């Protein structure tokens, strides 16, 4: 059934259109004047002002590798993160720890550990899946580079970003 939508009955002031124009002009001028007085909250001026101090604890920034308090690489090259990574941004080449190493019973370490930050989607699955708590998403978000090669974080860069995390896992620790 067809529904007849009645036309609104406009008052003369509405039909004239001019009062509405003047009203609109006043509204925009109010915004202009408030901006001029600096009363308006405007966009953050990004490179100068940053929201860094307000980032929540659970913020998911760039994934990084961490070392423990004994300067041991936490990563044991199990490659779970490489398998879980949805965009396949992680590439690990496992290496074997030599007999004489202090941490020989760990057996494996990542010989190479690359994260392609062009591919990374900051989902945090690598952090979630890691049995050794070796990979963490830190708060770095401004990951830039001039070439594609720049955007691939290698092991050195990942440890530099990650730093040291103490505690967490004690199974490799002799003092346990």
């Amino acid at each position, binding site marked *: 059934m067809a529904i007849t939508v009645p036309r609104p009955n406009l008052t003369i002031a509405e039909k004239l259109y001019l009062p509405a124009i003047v009203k609109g002009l006043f509204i*925009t001028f109010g*915004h202009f004047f408030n901006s001029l007085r600096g009363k*308006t909250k405007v*966009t953050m001026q990004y490179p100068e002002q940053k929201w860094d101090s307000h980032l929540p604890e659970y913020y998911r920034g760039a994934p990084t590798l961490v070392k423990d308090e004994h300067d041991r690489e936490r990563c044991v090259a199990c490659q779970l993160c490489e398998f879980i990574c949805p965009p396949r941004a992680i590439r690990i080449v496992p290496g074997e720890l030599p007999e004489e190493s202090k941490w020989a019973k760990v057996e494996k370490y990542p010989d190479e550990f690359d994260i392609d930050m062009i591919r990374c989607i900051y989902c945090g699955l690598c952090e979630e899946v890691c049995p050794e708590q070796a990979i963490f998403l830190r708060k770095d978000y401004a990951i830039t580079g001039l070439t594609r090669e720049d955007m691939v974080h290698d092991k050195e860069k990942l440890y530099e970003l990650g730093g040291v995390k103490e505690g967490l896992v004690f199974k490799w620790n002799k003092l346990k």
Partner: protein
Amino acid sequence: MDAATVQFVVISLIKILAIIFAALLPIVSYTVYAERRVSAMIQDRLGPNRVGPQGLLQPIADAVKFLLKEDFTPGHVNKFYYWLAPALAMIPAITMIAVIPFGSTLDLGWLLGPLANATGWELDTSPIPMVIANVDIGVLFIFAVSSLGVYGIVLGGWASNSKYPFLGGVRSSAQMISYELALGLSVVPVFLFMGTLNLSEIVNFQWQNGWLVLPLWGDGVGSLQRWLLTIPMLISFVIFTVAIFAETNRLPFDLPESETELVGGYHTEYSSMKFALYFLGEYAAMITGSAAIVTLFLGGWSLPGVPSGDSGFFWGVINILTFFIKLVALLFLFIWVRWSLPRFRYDQLMKLGWVWFFEIALINIIVTAVILALPIS
């Protein structure tokens, strides 16, 4: 050529160069900047504030960008008209400034007198009128030249050989024709009252007798006729201003451009400096249009109580500054309106032009004539 002719030519050239390169083009580029900053402030943003202090060097950066961009001519266009059109959009806008009195007179006797003594030239040291061409048909000249601006848009739209520019061009010509009538008719009351088309004389009259829309001093205050005339003059002022908005394709009448429906309108196929010419032409037209409004209705260079340039060099400069301050205030109005009102639909635009403004302007002329014929002073 005698000395007087040589002096006239030289001073005219200086005036032309000064008004174009020292006044018009800088105002154009900084109107673009002001447009972006003011629109940003109206929308609670900041606008360009990176290049130079508060982004004041932004126009220079824009100019460099326009000049360095590839000047691309698409293969499917009519080359001759495609190249001609941007120039046709810019030329009328600049030409219009020739008849606008942007100041009263400038007394350069202190400079020309010693110069004449030192060189032995026969120089006329009387104050120089601050208008490039003091012609008796000033307003007719403005109408004639300002309507030529549509050719740049129509030719650009047609020569681009592409549907959106074509639609923009067609809309532009329809819009121009609709508003040209109201524009012309709305100033007839002014001439009925003034009895002259010479813009300098119109401004001189307003300087002595109060502005047309505001007869608050001189002979205007005590005159009942002047106060009665204020009503038709205000109507003329509103219609003329709206028609100038339409003439310069500013919102709410920017149908030829209408980014939301026609991509870029008539300049969709243009890039780099050719696009910039359209862009600057639009702003230059806006400035000359505002200059016409200021001259006809807001007293041009005159301020109550301020003497003209005949009283000395200082007052001449003050008069020029007054004119440009009024101009800038009107430009702010242009920008302010643009960021407040939505665009008219095509049929609304036509209705407004043909049904409302045309009729109101006609009635306005009759009302003015009746008031002038009344036996009151």
